[in-house]
């Protein structure tokens, strides 16, 4: 049962932006959907996968974004409609194929949906996928609200089929992970059947082979398609204008920023002075439309996230027709009116617009704001990110940190992408010393592992989650093994793509649609590369530490320590305690113990708190997940654990 398939045409539903995108794809008759999990994009594939068997779709979590795009492209080549989703940095991974796909073209409508994360709310970068559209010469569209998220998705498939090229539809966190009322359209009837035609004339887009050669011919053809897209965009209903015909300030905006802009104009009461040109088609730019709007305004304000994509491209276009429109004054990121990084919000746009128009705005009285600020900074401590109660990563980093301290050669750990990236913070005892892209921990370790010849004597370690291992660690491991890099990979296997919501990956016996799949064994893969592989349970601090030290002392070659323990929030573990844990008040000596409060000062589990009044540790029974690891941390045996009754 899902509103995606049960929702009736013409009815309105309160749905997430990602659901609106998924419904739009269904209304367009999508057959194949593929992606790699990444916030804020994951729900599109997740929710399509749930209905796939009934709706007659094929939906997969691919091993990485590049393969996802290839899987989706294959469907398009066979005449089907397909969608491919990813978070912003996934586009970097997929971009090599996308470069070539833009040239070869597509057949069935194909839409690539990157969901960017301005402000890095759930990311370790603020990557912009929009520049790829210009760089790789494919059309880019951006929905401005929830209704458009559905309608533009549906239209994007038609557009792709008309142009015979992939269309990029970029979303952002504040659309994908926000909800609004959306009116559904009709679902189509019979699905298309798949067939790959390849023996027509070499250059025939519908029956020839799908290739990029001859490049001079096909690249020129690709650029003709972009010009055609521009002509279509000139009259697109997704480019809207609201405001006076001769505005003093013209706001040019797109995506969620159009909602902030609308709110700013209303809040400041500038409906008579400011107009909003909301662009839904952001590459190629509809230059004629821009020219007519620019001609009617004096001041132009660009409101967009994150990089000045519209700002720079509109200014470049404007330079071409300045003779006809007259000189304009531009405001945006270049002159500091709008911040150059981070997420925007209504207040930022209000402040920018107030400055340009000389309007006074004070959201609350000055004195109130000062008091509020004072109270918040005194009493509302900003919460440091931390591992959840019962998280196996806390135990794993405790072990790795201790092993490196015992080894005492200044060994270090290269980090990777997942919840365990937090291993660089106090919650992971500051264990990680690098943090970049998916798989780059092992790639960096592979390089560090070659530096003995230059005098580096530090042990080199890296970590990877189970999903990350398949995504991008395997090539780095192959490189390390082949070149004999002296490294240890700690494989933090928590049985799923945990950070984004337990999506399946190739190590699991189940696929995105919940059907049986061939599970690939990470240990066996590593052994096949010639690596020495050990396996341990990180909740067994002492035993794992011993095995880890032995592996470290071996010194040479590519070694792997698989630390297996399911995520505390995983369906198999959530709400099920292994142990009932409590602090024995008679044994906990508190500040008199001499332990220096290692349990709370260092171990820092949110569920093991320090009771100031009693001067002792205490387990918060609401938060405790019952992993029992803290009982191994207490030096005085004061934290007791008893096996919990299994529900």
């Amino acid at each position, binding site marked *: 049962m899902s509103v995606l398939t049960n929702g009736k045409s013409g009815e*309105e*539903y*309160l749905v997430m932006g990602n659901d609106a995108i998924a419904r739009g794809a269904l209304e367009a008759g999508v057959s194949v959907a593929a992606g790699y999990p990444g916030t804020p994009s994951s729900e599109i594939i997740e929710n399509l996968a749930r209905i796939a068997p009934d709706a007659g779709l094929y939906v997969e979590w691919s091993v990485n974004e590049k393969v996802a795009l290839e899987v989706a492209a294959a469907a398009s080549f066979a005449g089907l409609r397909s969608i491919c989703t990813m978070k912003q940095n996934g586009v970097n991974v997929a971009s090599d194929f996308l470069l070539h796909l833009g040239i070869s073209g597509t057949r069935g409508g194909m839409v690539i949906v990157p969901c960017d994360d301005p402000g890095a*709310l*759930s990311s370790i970068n603020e990557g912009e996928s929009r520049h790829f559209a210009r760089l790789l010469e494919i059309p880019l569209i951006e929905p401005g*609200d*929830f*209704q458009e998220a559905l309608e533009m998705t549906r239209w994007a498939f038609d557009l792709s089929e008309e142009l015979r090229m992939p269309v990029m539809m970029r979303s952002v966190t*504040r*659309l994908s*992970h*926000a*909800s*609004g*009322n959306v009116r559904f359209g009709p679902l189509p009837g019979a699905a298309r059947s798949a067939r790959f035609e390849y023996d027509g004339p070499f250059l025939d887009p519908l029956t020839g082979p799908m290739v990029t050669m001859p490049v001079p011919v096909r690249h020129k053809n690709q650029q003709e398609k972009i010009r055609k897209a521009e002509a279509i965009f000139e009259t697109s209903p997704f480019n809207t204008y609201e405001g006076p015909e001769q505005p003093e300030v013209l706001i040019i905006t797109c995506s*969620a920023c159009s*909602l*902030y802009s*609308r*709110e700013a104009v209303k*809040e400041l009461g500038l409906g008579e002075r400011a107009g909003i040109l909301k662009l839904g088609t952001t590459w190629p730019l509809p230059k004629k439309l821009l020219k007519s709007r620019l001609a009617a305004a004096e001041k132009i304000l660009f409101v967009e996230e994150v990089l000045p994509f519209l700002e720079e491209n509109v200014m470049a276009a404007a330079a071409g027709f300045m003779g006809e429109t007259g000189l304009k004054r531009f405001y945006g990121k270049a002159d500091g009116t709008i911040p150059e990084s981070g997420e925007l*919000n*209504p*207040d930022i746009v*209000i402040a920018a617009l107030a400055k340009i128009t000389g309007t006074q705005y004070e*959201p*609350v009285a000055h004195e*109130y704001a000062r*008091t*509020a*600020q004072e*109270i*918040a900074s005194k*009493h*509302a*401590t*900003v*919460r*440091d*990110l*931390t*591992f*959840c109660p019962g998280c196996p990563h806390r135990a794993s980093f405790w072990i790795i940190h201790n092993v490196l301290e015992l080894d005492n050669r200044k060994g270090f750990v290269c980090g990777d992408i997942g919840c365990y990236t*937090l291993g660089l913070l*106090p*919650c992971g005892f500051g264990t990680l010393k690098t943090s970049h892209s998916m798989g780059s921990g092992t790639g960096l370790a592979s390089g560090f592992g070659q530096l003995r010849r230059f005098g580096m004597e530090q042990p080199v370690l890296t970590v990877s989650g189970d999903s990350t291992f398949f995504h991008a660690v395997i090539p780095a491991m192959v490189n390390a093994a082949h070149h004999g890099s002296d490294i240890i990979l700690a494989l933090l296997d928590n049985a799923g793509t945990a950070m984004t919501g337990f999506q399946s990956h190739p190590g699991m016996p189940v696929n995105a649609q919940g059907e049986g799949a061939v599970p690939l064994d990470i240990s066996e893969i590593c052994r096949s590369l010639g690596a020495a592989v050990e396996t341990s349970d990180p909740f067994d601090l002492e035993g794992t530490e011993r095995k880890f030290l032995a592996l470290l002392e071996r010194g040479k070659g590519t070694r792997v320590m698989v630390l297996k323990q399911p995520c505390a*929030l995983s369906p198999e573990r959530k709400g099920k305690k292994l142990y009932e844990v409590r602090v024995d008040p008679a044994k906990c000596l508190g500040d008199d113990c001499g332990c220096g*409060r290692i349990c*709370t*000062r*260092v171990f*820092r*589990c*949110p569920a*093991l*708190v*320090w009771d100031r009044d009693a001067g002792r540790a205490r387990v*918060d029974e*609401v*938060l405790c997940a019952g992993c029992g690891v803290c009982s191994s941390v207490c030096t005085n045996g004061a934290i007791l654990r008893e096996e919990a009754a299994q529900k």
Partner: protein
Amino acid sequence: MNDSIKDPFNIIITGVGGQGNVMASRILGAMLSRRGYRVTIGETFGVSQRGGSVMSHLRISKKSAWSPQIPRGKADVIVALEPIEAIRTTAAYGSPESKVLANTRPIYPVQVIAGETEYPSQETIEESLGRLVRWAKFLNATGEALLLGNAILGNVIMIGALSAMEALPFTRADFESVITGSVTADKIGVNMQAFDRGAALLKKQ
């Protein structure tokens, strides 16, 4: 039930990851959507399960979708599932006219657990919020939820209390209808109990 709310009416549900914040905002959104309002919900989650503050911004309007982020000073009601999140959110989005409904059960930031900083007492929290808003009520929602067998029900208790504030146009029947479609049949009863408990607790104050 109050059917003549200002437009847009702005609600923030705030708390810490794992408290059922997102679920609460969706239930509230669904109830108001059923009443014919256009609802926009902005949610911040992702790393939220990992000890971070979580906020849902709800904009309720008869006319249109609004920005998924509420401007500073424009929150009409703040529902806090955690006490210092009530302070943080009110300081950023509140005004003297905002109404604050706060759970009294703390979830300590790890810096407090590590002894690097202190967590304010309930008296300090009430006194601080008293300086920021004219209307603030506190209830031990987590404690009451534990009596019903599960701490997570604290979010439904807070929704029940919100209904008793009569600031918003939804009824017990709206809640019953939405919760029936959101949880398994065996959980409907306890959710209704939690809702009623929250309403009763607020009325007692």
